[in-house]
C-alpha cells in the first residue's frame, strides 16, 4: 500500500496500528562479531536483504499499520539513515529511528518514547524484538487482539519449543479456553511450559500505566544505580506481574501455528536464518531467486544473486546461498549454505561450505572455506537452534560456521575450517578450530 493510500485511510473506521521494533545497540550485538564490527547487527544482510527489512516486510502485511518506530541505542549514522530512507520509499510507510540516550532495557525505550508511540492515537501497537527470525503473523495477532481480548488487552506472541530447550527462553503458561497467561517466567531452571516468548507483542495503549508504575518504582528504589534507573525490563516489570491476574488479567498469549521461528544470537545462526528467509522467498518473492539457465552456472535450491555479481558459467551454487553486489566467482567454484558479502572474490576451483565470507574478501584458487552447520534435530518439529558458548569444556572451539571478516584474504590451496577470522587478516597457511585475531 503506498504512502498516499495509508494517509488517507485515517478516515476509515478501523483504528490505526503502529509497530515498534527494538533493535538494541552495539553493547548487545557483541556475539555477532566480527560481522557487527562493520555494520549494526540489525542491518546485516540475511538472504540478501538487511535483517530489519524482513521484519518491516512482515509488519506491512497488515494494512492498518501507519508508522514503524525503530528504537535502539546505535548511534545515528549514514548507514542507518540511508536504510530508513530506503525502507520508507520501498514500503510507502513512515519509518523513524529513535535513538535512546542510554541503554534502556527491553521496555525503557518504549516508555521513554511513549509520546511518539501514542501520537495519532493508535488503537494498539506491536512490539517486536529484532534479534529473532520470523515472518511475524501480524494479521492474526491483530485479529486475536480485537476478538479475544476485546481490543484492550496485551498479547504475547508464543511459539512451541521442546521441554528441554524451553528452559532457555521466556516460558508462558496459557489458560487453554481464554488464552490468558497464567504465569510467565524467564529462563526457568525447571520445566514450566513448552510455549515460549517469540519476541512479539501487541499492546493496547493503557500498557503505559504499568510501564509508568515500573519506572516510578525503579526511580524510587535507592538501591538501583543511577545509570540503571531508567532501564526497564519488559519481562520482569510488565509480563511477570501482569500474568495470572485472575479475571481482571489482560495478558494473553497468541500461539503461532505455522511458520518458522528462530533466535539469531550469533553469526552462525545467521546462516540458518538465511536458509529460512530464502525458503520464504519461494512463495513471497520468487523473482528474487536465481534459476538455472542453459549455458549458465548451475543452481541448486534457493539461491539469491545480486544482479551485479559475476559468476563463471562452470561454477555451482546452492542450496541456500546469497551472493552480494559486485562479487566475482571464478571457474569451477562451489558455494553451498553460505552468505557471500559484497565485492568478495572467490577464485577458481574453490569450495565454500557453511560459511560467511565478508565484504571484500579474496579467496585464492582451490581454497576451502568450511564450517559446521548448526542443524536441528530433524525428528523434532519444534527443535530450536541453541545458543552454545564459543568453547566446549575441553577448551576447544565448538563446531560452528566459519566466518571471514571484512577484507580477509586467503591464499590459494588453503583450508579454513571452523574458524573465525577478524577483519583484514591475510591468511598464508591453513587454520582449523581457531579464532584468528
Amino acid at each position, binding site marked *: 500500500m503506498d504512502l498516499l493510500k495509508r494517509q488517507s485511510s485515517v478516515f476509515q473506521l478501523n483504528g490505526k496500528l503502529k509497530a515498534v521494533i527494538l533493535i538494541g545497540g552495539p553493547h548487545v550485538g557483541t556475539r555477532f562479531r566480527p560481522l557487527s564490527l562493520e555494520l549494526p547487527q540489525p542491518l546485516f544482510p540475511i538472504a540478501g536483504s538487511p535483517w530489519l527489512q524482513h521484519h518491516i516486510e512482515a509488519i506491512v502485511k497488515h494494512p492498518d499499520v501507519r508508522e514503524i518506530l525503530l528504537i535502539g541505542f546505535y548511534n545515528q549514522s549514514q548507514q542507518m539513515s540511508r536504510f530508513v530512507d530506503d525502507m520508507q520509499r520501498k514500503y510507502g510507510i513512515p519509518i523513524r529511528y529513535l535513538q535512546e540516550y542510554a541503554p534502556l532495557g527491553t521496555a525503557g525505550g518504549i516508555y521513554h518514547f511513549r509520546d511518539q508511540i501514542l501520537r495519532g492515537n493508535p488503537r494498539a501497537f506491536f512490539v517486536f524484538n529484532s534479534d529473532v527470525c520470523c515472518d511475524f503473523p501480524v494479521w492474526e495477532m491483530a485479529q486475536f487482539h480485537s476478538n479475544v481480548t476485546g481490543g484492550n488487552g496485551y498479547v504475547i506472541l508464543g511459539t512451541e519449543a521442546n521441554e528441554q530447550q524451553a528452559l532457555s527462553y521466556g516460558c508462558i503458561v496459557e489458560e487453554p479456553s481464554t488464552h490468558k497467561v497464567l504465569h510467565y517466567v524467564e529462563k526457568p531452571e525447571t520445566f514450566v511450559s513448552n510455549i515460549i516468548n517469540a519476541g512479539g507483542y501487541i499492546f493496547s495503549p493503557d500498557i503505559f500505566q504499568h510501564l509508568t508504575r515500573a519506572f516510578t518504582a525503579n526511580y524510587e528504589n535507592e538501591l538501583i544505580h543511577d545509570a540503571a534507573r531508567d532501564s526497564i525490563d519488559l519481562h520482569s516489570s510488565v509480563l511477570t506481574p501482569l500474568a495470572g491476574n485472575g479475571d481482571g488479567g489482560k495478558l494473553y498469549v497468541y500461539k503461532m501455528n505455522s511458520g518458522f521461528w528462530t533466535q539469531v544470537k550469533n553469526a552462525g545462526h545467521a546462516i540458518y536464518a538465511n536458509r529460512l528467509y530464502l525458503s520464504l522467498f519461494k512463495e513471497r518473492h520468487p523473482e528474487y531467486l536465481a534459476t538455472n539457465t542453459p549455458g549458465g552456472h548451475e543452481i541448486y535450491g534457493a539461491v539469491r544473486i545480486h544482479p551485479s555479481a559475476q559468476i563463471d558459467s562452470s561454477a555451482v551454487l546452492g542450496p541456500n546461498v546469497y551472493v552480494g553486489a559486485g562479487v566475482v566467482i571464478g*571457474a*569451477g*567454484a*562451489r558455494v*553451498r549454505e553460505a552468505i557471500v558479502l559484497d565485492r568478495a572474490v572467490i577464485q*577458481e*576451483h574453490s*569450495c565454500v*561450505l557453511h560459511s560467511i565470507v565478508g565484504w571484500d574478501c579474496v579467496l585464492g*584458487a*582451490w581454497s*576451502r572455506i*568450511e564450517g559446521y552447520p548448526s542443524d536441528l534435530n530433524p525428528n523434532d518439529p519444534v527443535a530450536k537452534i541453541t545458543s552454545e558458548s564459543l568453547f566446549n569444556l575441553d577448551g576447544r572451539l565448538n563446531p560452528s560456521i566459519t566466518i571471514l571478516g571484512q577484507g580477509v584474504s586467503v591464499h590459494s*590451496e588453503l*583450508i579454513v*575450517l571452523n574458524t573465525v577470522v577478524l577483519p583484514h587478516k591475510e591468511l598464508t597457511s591453513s587454520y*582449523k578450530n581457531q579464532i584468528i585475531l
Partner: protein
Amino acid sequence: MYLFPRQLGITITLSHEQEPLGTAGPLGLAREILEKDAEPFFVLNSDVICSYPFKKMLELHHSHGKEGTIVVTKVEEPSKYGVVVYNPTSGQIDRFVEKPKIFVSNKINAGIYIFSPTVLKRIQVKFMSLEKEVFPFMAQDGQLFAFDLEGFWMDIGQPKDFLRGMALYLSHVRQTSPERLAEGDSFVGNVLVDPSAKIGQGCRIGPSVVIGPNVIIEDGVCLSSSTVLRGARICSHAWVQSSIIGWQSVVGKWVRMESVSVLGEDVIIQDELYVNGARILPHKNITVSSPDPQIIM
C-alpha cells in the same frame, strides 16, 4: 608374470614359503636354483627403493672375492635401524649394532646384498634371520664387505616414506632419463604419467606425482606429492596432496585430501568432502568428511 620375462628377456621363478622362514630361510628353500652355477646372486628387499647400481655392486664383490657384500647407505637417524661398522679403506665389515643408543656410525644396512652360493652352507630351511644368525658369523670370518651406496635410498614400508621415496625416485628419473617425465602447461616439477591415463583441462599436476594406467583426472584438479594407482578417477576441482589413491578409487568433485591419506582399492569419496590423514580400507563409500587423522574400516 608372463609378460615381464618376455619383455625383459629373463626367466622368473616363484619360490613360495609354506610357513614363514624369516630373512634367510627362503634362500635355503631356493637352494637348487641359486646353486645352479658358481655365479654370485643378488638379494633384494622389496620394501626399499634406490638407484640399484648393480654393475658397480658386482664389480666390488668380485674385487674382494669374499662370500658377501652388503649395500650400506647413510641416514639421518641411524638409531632407528641396524648400524654397520666397517673399515672405510678395505670395506671389510667388522660388526653390526642394532638401534645404538649412542652414535656409532651413520651407515645402515640398506637391505640389498650380493652373495656367493657358498653362503648357503650357513643357511637351513627353517625360520632364520640373516641379520642376527648369518651376518655376524660372516663378519667374524672376515667374509662380509660393505658397498657404499651413492644417491637416494628409502625404506618405503610406511605410506609417508613411500611418498618420500617416490619423490626421490622421480628426481633420479629427472637426472637419468628426463624424457620419461611429463611436460606441458599442466605439469609442475617431476611427474610420471602412464600413456593410457587421461588428464583434463586447467589442472595443475605435480610436483612429485605418479599417475598409473587408465587413470582419469578431470578438469581443474590440483594434484601434488601423490600416487594415483591404476583405474582411479579424480573428479573435477579436487585438491589432492600427499596421498595414495588406490586402484579403481574415485575422489569426488571439490574434495580436499591431504596429510598422507591412503585409499585402498575401490574406495569412493563423495563430492565436497574433506579427508585429512585418513587410512581407508578397500570398498568403502565415504559420505562424511574425516577432518582428523583416523583409520576407516
